[in-house]
């Protein structure tokens, strides 16, 4: 027993060292048209459609190869590079199609565009949703993500928002992978634990850039709650 104990005293430090946790952070690849239109003026200025593509771990891939199509080219024409023009009055669906290089999956995103004589001014986009806990800690509330008139992207948490004050190191992120914050945007440490409050986000972030609001216990590397932006 003496030898066993001595061995334990000597070897406990060896086991008590930094090792590796393997995390399954796979998500379904996702592509979104990042500048969709509600309306396009007939014979007016053309519109260059663009996409954001997030691969199987939610990492954004720049300049993906996308093919574009219009459901009715006689209403809305679109080039191979995604430049659309209004041809005649009516409605058409623009479809972006991408085949992932990693898994050879075909994913699409659509945008229904009305071709009109005159474009309306108001093309603001607003996402509403709910934060729900993914842990045993209390975390709940509604949210709105919207672009304000001054161009600021604002995340607003509602009056019904509540978060446990027992959570240490609680941070809020915008991300595209609910299982990882490796490529997420860190909004900051949570300092409000009840009631309505807002986060104004930098102008470099677009409203279509992220799919999830993530609440993460940063020091312990674990997700506490999430809200899907859709």
């Amino acid at each position: 027993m003496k030898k066993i104990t001595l061995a334990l005293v000597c070897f406990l430090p060896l086991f008590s060292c930094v090792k590796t946790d393997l995390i399954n952070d796979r998500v379904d690849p996702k592509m979104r048209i990042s500048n969709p239109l509600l309306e396009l003026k007939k014979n007016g200025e053309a519109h260059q459609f663009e996409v954001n593509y997030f691969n199987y771990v939610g990492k954004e891939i720049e300049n993906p190869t996308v093919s574009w199509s219009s459901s009715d080219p006689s209403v809305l024409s679109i080039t191979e590079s995604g430049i659309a023009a209004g041809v005649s009055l009516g409605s058409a669906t623009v479809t972006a199609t991408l085949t992932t290089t990693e898994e050879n999956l075909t994913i699409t995103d659509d945008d229904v565009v009305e071709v009109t004589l005159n474009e309306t001014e108001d093309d603001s986009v607003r996402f509403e949703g709910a934060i729900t806990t993914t842990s045993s800690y209390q975390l709940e509330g509604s949210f709105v993500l919207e672009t304000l008139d001054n161009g600021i992207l604002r995340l607003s948490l509602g009056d019904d928002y509540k978060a446990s004050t027992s959570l240490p190191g609680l941070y809020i992120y915008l991300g595209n992978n609910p299982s990882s914050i490796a490529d997420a945007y860190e909004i900051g440490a949570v300092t409000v634990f009840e009631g309505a409050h807002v986060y104004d986000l930098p102008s470099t972030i677009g409203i279509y850039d992220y799919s999830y609001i993530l609440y993460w216990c940063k020091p312990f590397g674990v997700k506490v709650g999430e809200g899907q932006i859709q």
Partner: protein
Amino acid sequence: MKKIILLSILFVLSCSFFSHAQWLEKKGNGYFKLGAWALEADQHYTNTGKVDPNATRGNFNLNLYGKYGLSDNWNIIAYIPFYVKSYQNHRVSEITNETLLEGEEFSSFGDVDLGIEYRLFKKSKFAFSTTLVLGIPSGDSSGGSDGSYQTGDGEFNQFLKFNAGTPLSLFKHSFYAKTYIGFNNKTKNFSDEFRAGIEVGTGLFGSKLLLLMRSNMVKSLRNGSLNASNNSGSIFANNVEFISIGGEVAWKFTKKIGVSLGYDSAFSGKIIYAAPSYNAGIFYLLK
């Protein structure tokens, strides 16, 4: 969660070390131990008592424990974790093999406990004593890159407990039983705590082999205002609670020197790791 966890860990630890001395040491006698203690956990009890996952974290320390008889009625006690390490594993994607979160470790001196025990009285088979333990914030309460790798809680606490013990005879074999209840007065807006424990042990092979089982509990009085919302997002938390069960086996290979192996684990709790801890040590009996 962190500090919480660390604190609880250290308390469980100190409980186990403090339980080694069966009764007060006589004048000039002492019990000294060089020990190692380790815990690693990938889940924890939340504030609701449920178990949630976390990145694998670990704590390890090397410590000295001593109890010495100033007189037959007065003992001094010291627990000195002279090397405390807190660490977290790397988190790596099993899909891409990319590192999602770098692991980290931090080590320093830990929080020292200094105590004094006084024999209240001994009557018939029963012995009663009281112990005052001072928790010295000698560790680092903000270690590591994000301050979460604490090796101490940063607060000075005073733990006063009352101990009772008696020998027992069961199935023609001698046992002992000890129990304590105590109050831990904590500072810096931490909640005070009620603590209690019980220990049953026996000696075998002419008392060369000591076997014991113990259970400890901590109940927060929830009178401290410290929480994540008013602590600038610090990881330090409050209101740790647990009930643990554990055991220890010690072998004296001479009359003065022996070794011990121990195990403790919280089977219910709040804001504490949900994983067992292990300890091993070499002790010396001064007679």
